[in-house]
């Protein structure tokens, strides 16, 4: 299958520091790729370059073969990129339901309708409620997003991307900071997404057991460079990973 997302020599420099260094990689529908690497390796920056929050110094981003390097973040979202942020990034003083409804509204292409009351679009409200139920936030729909505990904010972050129904899902450490009993909700959600062969999933994740259970493929970033790419078992076992990332505790990683 042809790639839904591709980066070619994607590079960004902050002053002298090369945070993402000529990363060439393709992602295909039906495939979940885990992106691993030590703190500061450039994983989030790589995501930012793909979804358009940052502009590349060099190289290109392609969505379904189309060069989108010059397009803005909203334009790339409209082409099917969805992003859940590592640092929770919500509309703090709007309700939980409204946060998701705005994502649903964006997905429905309702951008400039100003003559109808928003409540008249009951379909958008219902869909938002369904998404909220799927992450277990249904009961908290009327709370302010800022009032949610951290774990719930993470779930809301994921829910907003789900509501966008993108072709490419980009999860940036979705379970970071969640309590143990909250993690399965999000992981189940990702596992269910995998059943849909038309979806491309990128997952940045530090927890190796999670990566092992979900990933079809692992790529490793170190100092902004792509140092390994392949089957999970092979990548985890490869010397470059043992040294570059898991070298600290190779015994535990296995």
């Amino acid at each position, binding site marked *: 299958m042809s790639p839904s997302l591709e980066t070619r020599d994607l590079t960004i420099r902050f002053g002298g520091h090369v945070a993402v260094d000529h990363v060439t990689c393709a992602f295909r529908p039906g495939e979940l790729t885990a992106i691993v690497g030590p703190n500061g390796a450039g994983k989030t920056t790589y995501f930012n370059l793909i979804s358009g929050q940052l502009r590349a110094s060099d190289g290109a981003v392609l969505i379904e073969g189309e060069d989108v390097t010059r397009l803005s973040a909203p334009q790339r979202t409209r082409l099917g990129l969805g992003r859940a942020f590592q640092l929770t*990034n919500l509309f703090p003083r709007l309700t939980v339901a409204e946060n998701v409804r705005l994502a649903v509204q964006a997905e429905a292409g309702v951008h400039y309708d100003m003559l109808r009351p928003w409540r008249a679009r009951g379909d958008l409200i219902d869909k938002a409620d369904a998404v909220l139920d799927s992450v277990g936030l249904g009961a908290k729909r009327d709370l302010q997003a800022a009032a949610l505990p951290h774990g719930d904010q993470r779930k809301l972050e994921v829910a907003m991307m789900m509501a966008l129904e993108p072709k490419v899902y980009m999860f940036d450490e979705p379970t970071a900071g969640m309590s143990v009993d909250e993690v399965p909700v999000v992981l189940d959600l990702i596992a269910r997404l995998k059943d849909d062969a038309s979806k491309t999933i990128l997952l940045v994740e530090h927890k190796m057991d999670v990566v092992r259970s979900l990933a079809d493929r692992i790529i490793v970033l170190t100092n902004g460079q792509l140092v390994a790419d392949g089957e999970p078992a092979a990548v985890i076992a490869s010397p470059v990973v043992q040294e570059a990332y898991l070298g600290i505790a190779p015994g535990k990683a296995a």
Partner: protein
Amino acid sequence: MTLLSGDPSRGRALQILVTLVVIALVFAPFLFPGAKAMNTAAKTCVMILLVASYDVLLGYAGIVSFAHVMFFGVGAYGVGLALYGLGAGWGALFAGLGLAILLSLALALAIGLFSLRVQSIFFAMVTLAVAYAFNVLASQLSAFTGGEDGRSFKVPAVLQPGFRWLDHPLFGVQANGKLLSYYLVVFVVAAAFLVLLRIVNSPFGRVLQAIRENPFRAEALGYRIVFHRTIATCVSALGATLAGGLSALWLRYVGPDTALSFSIQVDVLVMVVVGGMGSLWGAVLGAALFVVAESYLQDGMGALAGLAANAGLPLLPALFDPHRWLLWLGLAFVLAVYFAPLGIVGALTPPEGKGRR
């Protein structure tokens, strides 16, 4: 209050207060006889529209503009100069208003597209510069605008005070053109206000709130926020232009003091904050409170100063001197912001509403 908007104002006290203000304004000529009361009521109506349209920008979209009064001035000068130059006809009135609306839209579009891409502080600075330039232009082109003196003009015959449409008074009020003018103002303001209410409660209005809360995330959801912000600027400018036109029509005069002065911009800011940012009902309450205070605080203080003087109290007569009314208004403003940072609406809205943490 769900009328046309689909979004009820929250809180019983708030509803009652807004209803009282609306009743007072609709029946003002009959409830509060006298020229001064009627001027105050008309000014309140005009300010409600001016403040509400500013709140669309500031309270909903989170955009700080200093050019709102410029758009007010465009409307006032458009109507005023057309009636002055072309004669007191409806054709001139609508031509003036139409041109003013076009000019406002062009200015809003230019300012928006040019400067809303970048940081909001830049937008604020640009609006300040443009508004200042417009001010200077209006006083420099004195052959056309009347300069500092402004222009007095005649309004269409049926709106003139001398026009009698009944030869007997109506519930004790003279049925003249002034009364018609007042109801024209009330009607246009009510219609425009309801349109604004509709817009802020539309899917588009919701995106404005999202942009105010987190522009970065709004973009990540696929909203092209420059366009939303620019449209909000245009809507807001239209409201201000209409308010300016009504103001000129009511005063039968247009000049820098009544249409372009920067102090009007400051007043509008105060009214938005006192009423409660991010709620159009706040605009109603803020404007009503401010205009009434502005008109009657001096009288009240004069009376207090007199009382204090008669009672032989020291210092108080000087403090309550009517000329110091701005001091008291300023003090009231500071206290209001301190104790009710979310304005009257915020103070009267139940905590589970979205306005409060």
